[in-house]
């Protein structure tokens, strides 16, 4: 075990994957940011880091084509919103290679992106496309929330025989946490904090905010925090098993509520006949505002998570006072 920042864990995991698999190449103009030039990636692996033109559709299509032809590809698209330009290559091509071929072919490509509120990115740079993509069979979707999770997710994605998408969040960069010498299981949710009163299930940056909220609530309300790095296929059974021990379950999700990963898990819990109060706290159904005060009014913050937990324990009907 080592304590690493998220940023260090991510760079270490990419480097490990490059060392373990000489076939792995990186295609992406934003490589410089998430995987960090000060770690020397571009210098040390010059012939495996390809800097393409600003052409998301052809870049992703080429990544998928290379993967289909046997090349292992890590493709950072930078900001998740940019992927909309290459949407067809993800939804139509990568997701369908295995199924259409009846298991004869595969597309082992990993697409990495920064999703969610970067703050003052405004409406065109803060999307959370994982909510849309969870409706597409044939993809593995990951949303890391801790250094150990990005470590596990990069390992799982870069060794899987499926197309994998990693929905990173820029504000996780300085989070610290213990990272094992061997990557953990990216497909299973992890209890990051034990507690008996309320279960909060979160992913991505919302994990960090929930941990902070739980810290504040300590003494009043004992919060258990469950982090679920794998969005799709959804870890339904594990969430159901852990939720069974609670009267109150809150999902915190940076996606908007309609069609959010949380709403799917909530529906699974409800279908299983739970008696618990199950609610979700999501980003409000508005585009991302530029102004920070407005942004904090729509994206769940430590304050709103804390208030939501208090409200639910006190018997509130919804996690937000201003649910409208």
């Amino acid at each position, binding site marked *: 075990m080592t304590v690493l920042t998220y940023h260090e864990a991510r760079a270490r995991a990419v480097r490990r994957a490059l060392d373990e698999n000489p076939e792995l*190449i990186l295609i992406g103009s934003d490589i410089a940011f998430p995987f960090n030039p000060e770690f020397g990636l571009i210098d040390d692996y010059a012939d495996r880091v*390809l800097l*393409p*033109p600003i*052409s998301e*559709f*052809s*870049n*992703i*299509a*080429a*990544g*998928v*084509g*290379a*993967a*289909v*032809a*046997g*090349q292992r590809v890590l493709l950072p698209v930078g900001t998740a919103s940019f992927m909309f330009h290459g949407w*067809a*290559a993800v939804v*139509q*091509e990568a997701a*369908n*290679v*295995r*199924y*259409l*071929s*009846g*298991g*004869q*072919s*595969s*597309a082992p490509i990993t697409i990495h992106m920064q999703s969610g509120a970067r703050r003052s990115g405004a409406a065109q740079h803060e999307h959370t496309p994982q909510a849309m993509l969870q409706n597409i*069979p*044939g993809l*593995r979707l990951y949303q890391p929330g801790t250094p150990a999770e990005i470590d596990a997710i990069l390992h799982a994605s870069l060794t*899987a*025989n*499926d197309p994998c998408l990693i929905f990173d969040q820029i504000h996780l960069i300085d989070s610290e946490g213990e990272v094992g010498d061997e990557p953990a299981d990216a497909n299973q949710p992890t209890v990051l904090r034990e507690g008996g009163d309320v279960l909060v299930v979160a992913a991505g940056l919302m994990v960090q905010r929930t941990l902070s909220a739980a810290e504040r609530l300590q003494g009043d309300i004992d919060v258990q925090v469950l982090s679920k790095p794998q969005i799709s*296929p959804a870890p339904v059974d594990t969430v159901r098993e852990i939720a069974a021990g609670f009267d109150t379950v809150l999902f915190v999700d940076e996606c908007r509520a309609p069609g959010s990963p949380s709403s799917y898990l909530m529906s699974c819990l409800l279908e299983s006949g739970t008696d618990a109060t199950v609610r979700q706290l999501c980003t409000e159904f508005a585009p991302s505002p530029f102004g920070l005060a407005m942004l904090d009014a729509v994206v769940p913050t430590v304050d709103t998570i804390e208030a939501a937990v208090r409200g639910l324990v006190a018997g509130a009907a919804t996690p937000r006072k201003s649910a409208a």
Partner: protein
Amino acid sequence: MSESMHELFVPMLRARRFDERLLASADSVNGPSPVGIGQEGVAAAIALVRRPGDTLSLNHRNHHHLLANGTDPEQTYREILGRDGGPQRGRAGTIHLVDPSIGVFHTSAMVGCSVGLGVGMGLAHKRRRAGAVAFALFGDGAMTEGVVAESFNLAALWQLPVIFVCESNSEPMEEQATAIVSARELRHIPEAYRIPARSADATEPRLIAEAIEAATRSARDGKGPAFVLAQTVPWPGNAHFIPAHQPPTDLDVAQGTREGWDSSDPLLNELATLLEEGTTMDTVREVDREIVETMDRAARAALGAPEADASAAMEHVLASR
């Protein structure tokens, strides 16, 4: 049998008879099934230069390429008809057919996507330095898709071994390339990205074979991508997306008075050349009879098979691990 007969004519004939037999059972096909009739010359030209390790990125109109490259007809009929025993387990139908044994791993029916995927395959080949190339097949309609422009640029920037083959079955116009392309000629578009481009009459198989061979040689030699415009004419049965049945091609019209000759039929054009070079019609008829019988046997076996098993519908969504 003459050596040259097997280079272009026999692969074309396999493709032609495959599609004709399919159309004879068109009532059993669910949904559209675009056929390659009239475009077999392009397929045979590629099959002639394809080497093990090369890849083909095909599109919705793909039968002729598979058959010219030797894909098993019965397996293909089973897949097209959604029957048990299809290699893709009933998931493909016509427009997504693959055959990894000939380098066809994934077939996109999204117009233009075959070009982007083909560029990626070229990237994989270049990194392995084995001299393999990728063929990206697309119709003239794809030339108006943005991903095609992006892909030309990328392939040219990175000098990838990709042969872009545009199978145009639109009528060329006087002032512009086609009714929906404002460029004067289709080849001007790749040329703007400094991709060497050739146009060839694909109703004359030897002309298109020459162009494909030159483009492929250049890509194999590390000279980057190349573009070939294979100009065909629309086969009458393709007027609608669900092709109409036409009487099977009568090979005999290629000899004698040539009455009923369709000068845009690449199969008949190649046959006429072979006959002029000394191949006898008897030899051709014998080969044809064998191929027609093979296709008929294959189609009957597929038509007699039950539907693909519904219980397998949830398999192969993701790799199991």
